[in-house]
């Protein structure tokens, strides 16, 4: 038996860290834990941010005013992921979409399900599907995914920011 020469090996390491959500995200997540999506509004340009980060990058000012948004919105754009992503438990193919909640001026990524993949399109109206209330925590995972509402599509021009 000959010994195989090895000049390369895989060594697994782990790194644990403590994540501090910060004021704006903490306020947002505490509301998400109650099933509410609470945005923050820029006092200068009135842009509505969800999830909020506590400031408006356009104006460089803090966002304090809060407003609750509905859990409905539209698909600003999307991709269908066909390959397994290392470390990600979601089984492909799945839809990763930029969801623009009604009344918001930025989108966030979430899943779309309960639809034939071929039917997904930009401008499609969607609504959040929440987990059972007993499973809620301070996480956007309280929303399992978004599903189509069946309403008429919106024109993509609505995604343009109007000050």
């Amino acid at each position, binding site marked *: 038996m000959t010994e195989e020469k090895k000049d390369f090996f895989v060594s697994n390491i782990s790194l644990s860290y403590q994540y501090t959500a910060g004021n704006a995200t903490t306020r947002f997540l505490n509301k998400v834990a109650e099933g509410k999506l609470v945005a923050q509004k820029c006092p200068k340009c009135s842009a509505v941010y969800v999830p909020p980060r506590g400031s408006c990058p356009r104006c460089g000012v803090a966002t304090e005013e809060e407003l609750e948004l509905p859990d409905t919105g539209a698909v600003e754009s999307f991709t269908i992921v066909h390959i397994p992503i290392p*470390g990600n438990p979601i089984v492909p193919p799945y839809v990763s979409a930029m969801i623009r909640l009604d009344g918001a001026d930025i989108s966030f990524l979430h899943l779309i399900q309960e639809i034939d993949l071929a039917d997904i399109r930009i401008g499609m109206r969607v609504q959040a599907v929440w987990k059972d209330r007993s499973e809620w925590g301070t996480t956007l*995972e309280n929303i399992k995914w978004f599903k189509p509402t069946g309403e008429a599509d919106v024109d993509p021009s609505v995604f343009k920011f109007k000050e």
Partner: protein
Amino acid sequence: MIEAAVIGVGQTKYEAKRRDVSMGGLVRKAIDKAMLAADVDWDAIDAVILGKAPDMFEGVMMPELSLVDAIGANGKPLLRVHTAGSVGGSTAVIAASHVCSGNFDTVLTITYEKQSESNATWALSPKYPYSPHINAGAGGYFAPYMREYIRRYDAPENIGWKVAVKDRLNALKNPLAHLQIPGIDENMVAETPMLWDPLRYLESCPSSDGACAMIISNKKLAYSRNAAWIKGMAVRSEGTLSAGRDEVNPQGGQDCAKDIYDQAGITNPFKEIDCAEIYVPFSWYEPMWLENLHFCDLGEGWKLTERGATEIEGEIPFNMSGGVLSSNPIGASGMIRFGEACLQVTNQAGDHQVDGANVAMGHAYGGAAQFFAMWIVSNKK
């Protein structure tokens, strides 16, 4: 006025797995070639500027410290640059700025990635705290913007295939390029698996190991060498989570391009720039950046690609070296664009040389398409 020129460019062979060298060996190979091309010795190097994509890619934190001997920085000023995928470009601009400062005559700048010792898609797809696990690599992030470009301007789907073919045909003329795919055509691209709809396998960049180095100097050395003079250079960034941000045509990219054209006295980039190395990691970014960088009006980019304007013998050749679509050592990918622009204007690009190239552009973008770095080089002082 910028008083700095690139007097030497060194690149390694780009491959999926450079198991013949360590990280130190990899960067040193590029440095040795750059110093040979520049005809300088270590005594001439006044400072070293190193760039690399996020440390999480290889899991080696602050590699500029462990690499200090390999990059010849012992006892010399050393700076590390971080701007995600655009880092190779930003590093070049920062290195040139050091020469322009007047405090350094000659600077060595080096960028690299050893993707075989990492998994960039894993590193780019973490589960963020308190969020669903949606991140799906760089392609997953950029695909929705490409889809929106296609929708906005009603672009035919074979434009992406055309870019994928064009850059790989160019790579066949560049012996350093990672992907060498003889006989590639649009059908071959169209038959490869869909990764991130609308993006297919051959419309995406590979994972590469490699390094790129440059020697940047002032006129004392550059006058006696075949130098690429920097005529304009700039970096820009923009807020990713900003209301009104247009990810298809980012303001940061528009402003950065305008800035370097103004510095270089360019009023019509399409006519006045002879060729360009532009950061196109996914096929659709060629038409998107044609528009963003003011080579044409909005909605016209895909038509330029369609009519062959960006081919090596076209009106505005893009990515003669094969581009990021053919070689992608992420940290170095931006600097390769900047260095290849220099090789073109100094007539050193070999089989992928554009005849009579006097003015060339290098470009890089990174992060969530919020970091931009660009320069214009010319063979005339």
